[in-house]
């Protein structure tokens, strides 16, 4: 198992670490038993994600994917952030070892959870299909 330089860069000096006290949306996914939890905070202004921060408990790839994923949605419209796939995050990191792919799935789910929270809090109508019940975290491990 080997990490790309990009992963190590984002792990050694992760971007957007922290919390947003008056966040418009907060999403938390993962669980302690599995060894990774991601919590994302977003600030939304006029449909644009003006700020995003994360707190992550997890391995190097969990921290690196959190860093990269938050970079990728910062300054983007909420609708676009929802389209961010784990595949895009993995590609931006120049790949992840196969056993670590679930970490990128977690990042995608954390963003979706934060956006859903923002929609719910603001009474914004949305397509429920976009937020289907989280696929089981354990399954990602087995898929990986």
């Amino acid at each position: 198992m080997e990490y790309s330089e990009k992963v190590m860069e984002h792990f050694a000096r992760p971007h957007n670490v922290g919390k947003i006290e008056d966040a418009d949306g907060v999403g938390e996914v993962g669980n302690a038993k599995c060894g990774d939890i991601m919590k994302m905070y977003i600030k939304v202004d006029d449909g644009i994600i003006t700020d995003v921060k994360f707190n992550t408990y997890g391995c190097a790839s969990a921290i690196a994917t959190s860093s990269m994923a938050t970079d990728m949605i910062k300054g983007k419209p909420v609708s676009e952030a929802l389209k961010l796939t784990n595949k895009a995050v993995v590609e931006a990191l120049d790949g992840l070892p196969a056993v670590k792919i679930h970490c990128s799935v977690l990042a995608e789910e954390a963003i979706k959870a934060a956006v859903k929270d923002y929609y719910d809090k603001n009474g914004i109508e949305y397509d429920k299909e976009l937020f289907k019940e989280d696929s089981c975290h354990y399954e990602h491990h087995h898929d990986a």
Partner: protein
Amino acid sequence: MKVYADNAATTKLSEKALAAMMPYLTETFGNASSLYDIGQQAHHGVQFARQTVAEVIGADTNEVYFTSGGSEADNWAIKGVAEVMAKKGKKHLITSAFEHHAVLHTMQKLEKDGFEVTYLPVYENGIVKVEDVKNAIREDTALVTIMYANNEIGTIQPIAEIGKVCHEKGVIFHTDAVQAVGHLPINVKEQNIDMLSMSGHKFHGPKGIGALYMRKGIRIPNLIEGGAQEAGKRAGTEAVYAMVGMATALKDANDNLESNMKKMSALRDRLIDGLLKIDSSRLNGDRNCRLPGNVNISFEGVEGESLLLYLDLQGVSASSGSACTSGSLDPSHVLLAIGLPHEVAHGSLRLSLCEANTEEEIDYIIECVPPIIERLRSMSPLWERIQKERGNA
């Protein structure tokens, strides 16, 4: 500063071992089975190696069989005894819950083949109870195999007492002593050990070589057919350089055993004391009954792989029992076996020392770890939750 603190994974080849190996990789290249001079010289190398290994563990020379390493020795011993005993209707095996995978996976394979396996508990201190072994032995028990010292948490098992119980009941006793040989005093006769596995690279010998000690009178099927090597039990031209390297390293380790143990224990205790000053940390495994070089500590709210990679960025090589380092869903089976919750097991750090480590290196580790823990906790939603539950936030 560069600090290698993963000696339970592997050790650096000693200069003495390398020097002893070199002739067999160069001019003394003969096949140890050949009758002319250069072959006989190689044969002498094999004899020296076998005799040296036997002497160090208190065995007879013809009771030592070289293998490719510890895993092969474990596999051969367990499967071999199982096969022989099954013919006598004995299909029950006893082991512990926290063995190395070379033993555990072999047991799982045998379960599929129709054997019944008892996995003894190791309790919070990581030590098997002799009484449990005694109670687990049945009429149809073929073998008891309990590791000498655990590879992750370093706890040393009551080997002589377990061996005694086995002999009273007429059951063969094997021990995976990969972590113990060269680090603890061992005498197979005095400690009632029938079979013992070891690995050269755990005590500054080369990789790719190990040995199985098998008491005279125990017969198991040959591992490899095709020649007279290893008394016909494991055919194949001898890797004389590896055997000589392992034996030289083992002799050196044994000659300096007491002073090495004293030095390493002092370094270990300094490191344990230094790291336990960190809030919400715990030592895994019995504090006193452990290998002189083993430190295993869990830090709550922190994930082990991140911890060890941040340590690597500072030049410290260590290991962890988190799921992310094992490449599987669960954290270390050893840490779960001593009753750690998953989330605490994920935050474990193993530092394993050797006699070449220095106080300066220990102090450097003690200096490096706390800021990393603080950094990881400051971004950990799990730590935030733990703090809230404790009313600290």
